[in-house]
């Protein structure tokens, strides 16, 4: 057996600032994960379908446009609606403090904001996203 952690990295909504997502994709690759990067302007529907078809262990969302309070919970909800409860959703970006708790309440498993080191994100994944089964 040769289990690999598979991560979907996506940018929902109208936001073309993908430097952060690309840095993360590269960082995850170097950490030994398989990263499926779907680029910018994804709808929550597209992200959910991709997550299911790719059978990933985790979905990572990046959004810098301020629409995270709508888009992130929407991805979590649509996964739930499709009967998928075993794929955790993690978010990052410019997230004001006052939005943190509502996002956790909506089902986000972790939120990484500016200042979070790459190492701390990889460590979180290694600790919390054990390969399934």
């Amino acid at each position, binding site marked *: 057996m040769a289990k690999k952690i598979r991560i979907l990295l996506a940018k929902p909504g109208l936001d073309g600032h993908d430097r952060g997502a690309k840095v993360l994709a590269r960082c995850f690759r170097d950490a030994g994960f398989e990263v499926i*990067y779907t680029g910018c302007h994804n709808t929550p*529907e597209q992200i959910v379908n991709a997550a299911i078809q790719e059978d990933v262990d985790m979905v990572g969302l990046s959004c810098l446009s301020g629409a995270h309070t709508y888009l992130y919970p929407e991805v979590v909800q649509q996964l739930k609606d499709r009967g998928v409860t075993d794929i955790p959703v993690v978010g990052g970006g410019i997230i004001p403090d006052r939005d943190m708790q509502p996002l956790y309440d909506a089902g986000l498993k972790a939120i990484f904001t500016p200042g979070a080191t790459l190492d701390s994100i990889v460590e979180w994944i290694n600790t919390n996203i054990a390969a399934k089964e």
Partner: protein
Amino acid sequence: MEELGKRALTGDIRAVSRLIRNIEDQVPNTHEAIKHIFPFTGRAHVVGITGAPGAGKSTLTDQLICSIRAKNKTVGVMAVDPSSPFTGGALLGDRIRMLRHADDPGVFVRSLATRGAMGGLSKAVGDGIHVLDVMGKDVIIVETVGVGQQEVDIINHAHTVLVVLVPGMGDEVQAIKAGLMEVADIFIINKADREGARKLYKETLSMMDMGKFPSGWRPPIVMVESNLEPHSFAKSVDELYEKIQEHYKFLYDNNLLQERAQLKVQTEINDALRSAILEPVLNKLIETGEFDQMVQKLLKKETDPYTLADEVAAKYLIK
């Protein structure tokens, strides 16, 4: 595990993606699921698309999906990107180009990493094709990693192989070299609006004029211009799909599908024997520490690899 196979047969998306995942991860007993679905395989038209990195394979695949869907046929895609030889990690980015199909229930896209396989594919591709086949996809597109001259494993899995060429990659000697240029059923000259496309066309043509085509199929060359002109791009890819269908019909009419199937079956037996015979022995050797001892012996030049292999064979193979 057999249950997963049964669910895949009904087209259950989660079962299909989990099954492919298990094949990739080599989860024990995954073979049970494959045993279950194998009798139902062989229905889909498998199209391989290969070419150098950045030649436009994913973008062509995306447009090809449109052409196929316009004929009311369903599509499964397996897109392979390379794993790092250092960390084992991978960045799978083919999906970016195919995003517009993510909401179409008639399209299933799966990204795979090579995980050390050398021929331009992932080891999971062979069984992965079976899974997409039995889930009911009419056409299965297998996109290889960006290849060089030699990574041509795709011919063992596809009925129709598309080789994507782009202008500016070398002189006409490249066109008569062995390997990639020999495996094409259809040539695509992509980015044909760029300088050198005409020259590449002529070189490819004269390369074929020197060739013999015992099967009777002479690979056509399809020119495709930039996707920045969406209308003409779509039209060229529609033409490409017509050629793909022509090729399948040609194989069918001349009883050549069987020949292609034979290549796939030979590869499959080879792989299955490897996993049934070689892998257990290797695992055993590693478990018992014998493998390390062998490495040490070789380093000290106490013996040679062939003597060691003979010893292992004598011990584990019942003649």
